[in-house]
């Protein structure tokens, strides 16, 4: 054997160097920079309660973003998440009229989310339709049902125990939503990075046909991912409805964009196949800190959306521009 001719290095790169160069590290640096800039720009930024308030800007969206990250890694997308929130919230409001208790309301919210996710999943895996079109359709359909039920009216008068999910604090400034967000982050980290299911998600995203031939039940995994995304939209609907204390058909309008932006900003490849949960977690903080910082500086919401649109295109464009310069 000629062991001298072929030298295969043990490692292509030291893990430390690889981690240093990763997207997540870059993003973390950006998050810290934004944090520092904000604390200089506004005297109100460095306040435990203000910072706690700031987390509400992203916790609900991030919960959906975790499931959406898995979905996008598997090469699919769900643009109907914001409409699922609207429908789930409407269903909870309707249940409220029937004197359903707090836990019943939660069950209705989560159940509606799962049903909507199952509908998307069935259309995509059962009929073999492209997920973009299906979810553009269900995006109008689900919110459309909310409009049919509510018109220009709204539901309010949720029970006081129900307000805990969106307004309650577990300990000092740590809100229930933040704890839920952190717990889900850990769960999704384990699911994506530490289980066979997670490996299957990457495999499907990189090569669906190859994944099928290596014994992965591609359709089943995809269906479960749509179900999970629907469920997370249901969870977000419970939190958001509880936080706002009312339901209107325009609830969470345009959130699908922010969720997708969060996922892409977190380093998930929009074409599928790569990405990580830590990246999405940091991206959630970046977006939350930016919107909160701009809010403290009295920048109107719609101007922030310009910023988010630029962020979405920018984070995808910049690496490509960089690669073009080098070649």
């Amino acid at each position, binding site marked *: 054997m000629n062991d001298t001719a072929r030298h295969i290095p043990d490692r292509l790169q030291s893990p430390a160097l690889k981690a240093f160069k990763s997207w997540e590290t870059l993003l973390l640096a950006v998050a810290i920079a934004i944090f520092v800039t904000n604390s200089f720009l506004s005297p109100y930024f460095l306040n435990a309660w203000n910072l706690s308030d700031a987390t509400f800007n992203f916790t609900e969206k991030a919960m959906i973003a975790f499931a959406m990250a898995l979905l996008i890694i598997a090469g699919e997308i769900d643009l109907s998440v914001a409409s699922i929130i609207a429908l789930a919230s409407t269903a909870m409001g309707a249940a409220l009229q029937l004197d359903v208790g707090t836990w019943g309301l939660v069950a209705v919210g989560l159940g509606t989310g799962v049903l909507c996710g199952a509908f998307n999943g069935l259309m995509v895996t059962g009929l073999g339709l492209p997920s*973009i079109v299906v979810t553009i359709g269900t995006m*109008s359909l689900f919110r*459309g049902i909310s*409009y049919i039920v509510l018109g220009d009216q709204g539901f309010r008068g949720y029970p006081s125990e129900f307000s805990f999910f969106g307004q309650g604090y577990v300990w000092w400034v740590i809100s229930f939503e933040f704890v839920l967000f952190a717990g889900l982050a850990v769960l999704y980290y384990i699911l994506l990075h530490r289980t066979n299911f997670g490996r299957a998600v990457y495999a499907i995203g990189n090569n669906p046909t190859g994944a099928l031939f290596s014994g992965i039940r591609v359709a089943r995994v995809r269906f479960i991912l749509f179900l999970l995304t629907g469920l997370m939209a249901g969870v977000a609907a419970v939190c958001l409805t509880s936080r706002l204390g009312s339901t209107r058909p325009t609830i969470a309008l345009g959130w699908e*964009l922010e969720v*997708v932006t969060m996922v892409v900003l977190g380093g998930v490849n929009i074409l599928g196949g790569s990405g990580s949960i830590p990246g999405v977690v940091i991206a959630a903080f970046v977006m939350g800190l930016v919107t909160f910082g701009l809010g403290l500086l009295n920048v109107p919401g719609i101007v922030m959306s310009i910023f988010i649109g*630029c962020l979405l*295109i920018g984070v995808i464009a910049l690496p490509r521009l960089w690669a073009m310069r080098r070649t």
Partner: protein
Amino acid sequence: MIRYLKSREALLVGVILALIALIASRFPAFILPSNLVNVFTDTSPLIILAVGQAIVILTRCIDLSVAANLALTGMVCAMLNVAYPGLPIPFIIAVALMLGAVLGAINGILVWKLTIPPIVVTLGTLTIYRGIIFVISDGAWVNAHEMSAAFTGFPRAEILGLPVLAWLAILTAATFFVVIARTPLGRAFYAVGGNPHAAVYAGLNVGKTQFWAFVLSGTLAGLTGYLWVARYSVAYVDIAKGFELEVVAACVIGGIAIAGGAGTIMGAILGAIFLGIIKNALPVVGISPFWQLAISGAAIVIAVAFNARAGRAKGRIILKRAEAEAQA
């Protein structure tokens, strides 16, 4: 002949006629010529946008920024009219076409040069364009009394019994009918969407073709922007919000394959007319307008499911026929 009768377009014409007959059986006033003209005029913006969107979808892309482009161009035209009431309408239309083309070209460049997926690009530019309207208008409305009579009168002026708006929709449809069927660029849209790899070997520049599709879609959105603002005599940040979905729905219902390369301009126009009739019939039949969003959503979902089935059956028939011929 039989092929034409079996086509999606013939089916849609049948469905549309049946729908009109159904409404007319209960509400005869609906088919008065004057009302049909109203329905068509009301659907004209959707028709113009659907033609542009159809071209974009043919090339395997999607343009979700059309409604935002429309709103931004409309706002610019309205503000221009308020600032310089003497500007001639052809100048305003030229500005609308050019601004629309530029906004479309921004999408096109990002898709072509940076190969960013079109859905991401246009989701991004959708929010950016809407945001820019807020920035330039400061959130204020431009109202009817601020606009000049010539500005608001143009789309409503009647020629041979039809308003200019309706004529422009017909003109757009006719132009793109010819462009798609009879020009190299028109055929390139199909080739690029049908099989990009084959298109490259045939000497086509895929990205550049997609770029032109976005420019055309943007230009038509710009034109619609002026027409919309002038017709409704009001411009504000949220005009035509969510309209992009209705435009996509018209295309999908019209049989434009979302995977690109298949479908006709005629189909997209019929899809738009179908949605237009439903929209105009709802108040007549006494259904709350709040149903409209759900109906277009359901129409999209049913139409895609139908498209997928139709496509699958056709493939099998071709195989069966080939098998039968091989055995004979």
